[in-house]
């Protein structure tokens, strides 16, 4: 049999994969008494080296993805295209890579602060990222499952990375148990889908899917449960707060952003390719899930004292917002989803970065009160935090508002076209929710600016990496909010909005490789 493999289609993955494979080796080499630098390295130096290395891979991957975006749609293996490298996957990969890169940058100092600076960290991050990238592009159940696990398993460990801290252990254990439980359910669902249609490729499943048959629908439901777990949508969300709170802050940031992005990518694929025939039932279910997710997330966030936990709930709520775009199911809707995921990454990472910088003396300082007086002591951090909060709350002229605006715009547009009241109600509930969300988002600037700083707990200055990340997030939040059109012109006419739209178009009309 003849195979025609298009290795280059995997460009971005290769870059990251190489990193994932080489970093552990590099770590071992660097850890020796006599390194090629001919003298033993402190753990910090080692960490920095590895971070830079992984950063290198990520940046290469980024560049490749940017190129891929403007290029044609490609698949790895013509005879059995398990992945499709279309604009959606490229776009989401870019988002994931950005998130990962920023995480890596922040981690260097943070790991030193919490005294768990192990080189494996970066290897695990890289392999997780690899999983995410495959997840966003997978069009095949097998690959979907594999990628999901490749993404999750390193995360189980990463969240338990503070080996000595009970909270970290607990977070890891919970994540592991509930996570693998969920993936087992997902697997069973996949099995049923396969049994119902006799194929593992999403496109063919979609072609043969029979909404009347019970097994098909059963499989669909179970798959939705599995993916719903990954995007932490109610009622499959409860692991998120615990895990996010216990995990090291940078890991939390990483999980809260990239994992969601990738999982939403998978969800997009499944919904558009496989479950299209069952769309009305699926969307009906998603409507309820979206409303629940927004509401529960926001309500629970109000009563939190720990900022990581609060952000966990806020990330749940935001998953709800994004679902709105999925439910709309138009080009605008999907474009809004993509855009929102990008924006969301910056907003949330900005916040988590600040929290990470606050860590000191081997432990996190993640109570909201720990931020008291930050506005006076550390203006940049405070500003970043505040703007992230306002963005998350969706106040113009920040990117968060732009994202929400597009989501609700899509909903209303579809609603007015079809006279579908449910979409209008969804939008109303959405905006009411974001009004509720103010209750906790505003608390952070309130504490930072209106409270007097605690004298003995002045956080240390953000280092170069951190400052870089903060400024990047700030710039992105503001620019994406003010001129969402042509933000990334520097990357060669990269008009986000039109790009998301273009990507969404490809999503709706799956390209024939």
């Amino acid at each position: 049999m003849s195979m025609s493999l298009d290795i280059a289609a995997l460009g971005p993955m290769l870059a990251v994969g190489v990193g994932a494979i080489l970093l552990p080796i590099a770590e071992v080499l660097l850890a020796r008494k006599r390194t090629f630098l001919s003298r033993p390295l402190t753990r910090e130096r080692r960490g920095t080296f590895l971070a830079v290395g992984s950063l290198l891979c990520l940046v290469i991957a980024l560049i490749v993805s940017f190129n891929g975006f403007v290029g044609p749609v490609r698949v790895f293996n013509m005879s059995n295209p398990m992945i499709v490298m279309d604009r959606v996957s490229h776009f989401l990969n870019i988002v994931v890579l950005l998130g990962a890169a920023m995480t890596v940058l922040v981690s260097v100092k943070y790991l030193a602060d919490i005294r768990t600076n192990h080189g494996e960290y970066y290897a695990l991050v890289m392999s997780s990222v690899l999983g995410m990238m495959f997840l966003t592009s997978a069009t095949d159940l097998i690959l979907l499952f594999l990628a999901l696990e490749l993404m999750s398993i390193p995360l189980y460990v990463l969240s338990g990375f503070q080996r000595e801290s009970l909270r970290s252990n607990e977070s890891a254990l919970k994540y592991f148990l509930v996570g693998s439980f969920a993936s087992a359910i997902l697997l069973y669902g996949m099995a049923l889908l396969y049994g119902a249609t006799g194929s593992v490729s999403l496109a063919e499943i979609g072609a043969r899917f029979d909404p009347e048959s019970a097994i098909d629908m059963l499989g669909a439901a179970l798959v939705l449960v599995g993916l719903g777990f990954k995007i932490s949508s109610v009622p499959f969300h409860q692991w998120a707060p615990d895990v996010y709170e216990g995990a090291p802050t940078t890991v939390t940031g990483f999980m809260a952003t990239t994992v969601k992005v990738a999982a939403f990518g998978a969800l997009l694929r499944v919904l558009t390719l496989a479950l299209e025939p069952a769309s009305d039932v699926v969307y009906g279910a998603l409507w309820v899930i979206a409303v629940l997710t927004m509401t529960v997330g926001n309500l629970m966030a109000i009563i939190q004292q720990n900022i990581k936990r609060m952000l966990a709930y806020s990330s749940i709520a935001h998953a709800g917002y994004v679902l709105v775009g999925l439910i709309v199911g138009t080009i605008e809707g999907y474009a809004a989803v993509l855009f929102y995921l990008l924006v969301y990454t910056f907003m949330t990472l900005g916040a988590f970065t600040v929290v990470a910088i606050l860590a000191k003396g081997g432990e996190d300082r993640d109570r909201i009160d720990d931020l008291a007086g930050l506005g006076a002591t550390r203006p940049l951090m405070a500003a970043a935090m505040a703007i992230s909060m306002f963005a998350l709350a969706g106040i113009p002229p920040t990117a968060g508002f732009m994202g929400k605006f597009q989501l609700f715009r899509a909903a209303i547009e579809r609603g007015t076209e079809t006279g579908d009241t449910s979409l209008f109600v969804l939008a109303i509930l959405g905006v009411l929710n974001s009004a509720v969300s103010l209750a906790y988002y505003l608390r952070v600037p309130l504490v930072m600016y209106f409270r007097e700083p605690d004298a003995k707990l002045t956080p240390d200055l953000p280092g170069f990496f951190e400052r870089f990340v903060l400024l990047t997030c700030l710039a992105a939040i503001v620019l994406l909010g003010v001129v969402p059109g042509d933000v990334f012109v520097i990357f060669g006419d990269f008009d986000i909005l039109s790009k998301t739209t273009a990507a969404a178009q490809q999503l709706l009309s799956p390209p024939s490789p």
Partner: protein
Amino acid sequence: MTEQVLFYVFSFVAVLSAGGVVLNVRNTVYAALCLVVSMLSIAVLFIMLSAEFVGVIQVLVYAGAIVVLFLFVIMLLNLKSEDMGAESQPLLKLVGTLLILVVSVKLVALLSGTRKSWPEVGSEFGTVRAIGEVLYTDYLLAFEIAGVLLLAGLVAAVVIGKQRID
């Protein structure tokens, strides 16, 4: 005829020993052993479904590696009998159990409704050769990813598991 006997026997054993894993509260080791039994019988079912390769893998990896790993850990922590205090949320678990029973019944009913017959398949079907061909052509990518996954798992297990980090 023999097929039916085999099927019923092994599926019975499989489910029974699976139940053993769940219900055997006293001794974790027994639970692990039940797991082995269940997996072996599942392997038999695999082979009955003319999936030799997978069956073999099932025996080697699952029974041979995974469960051994379990046992190893159990021994390492040498806790034969687990003694957990009082149940903290009995009601929830009761309801859950009932729910599961109901769902299982429904599920069985539903699945038994789907009547389909076996297609004729060549003798090649499910052999190592056949699987190998597909695996290294169509599913090459998946295979590679599985490799990375194993590496990642290795690193992960090491970093989290090893007793002390210098």
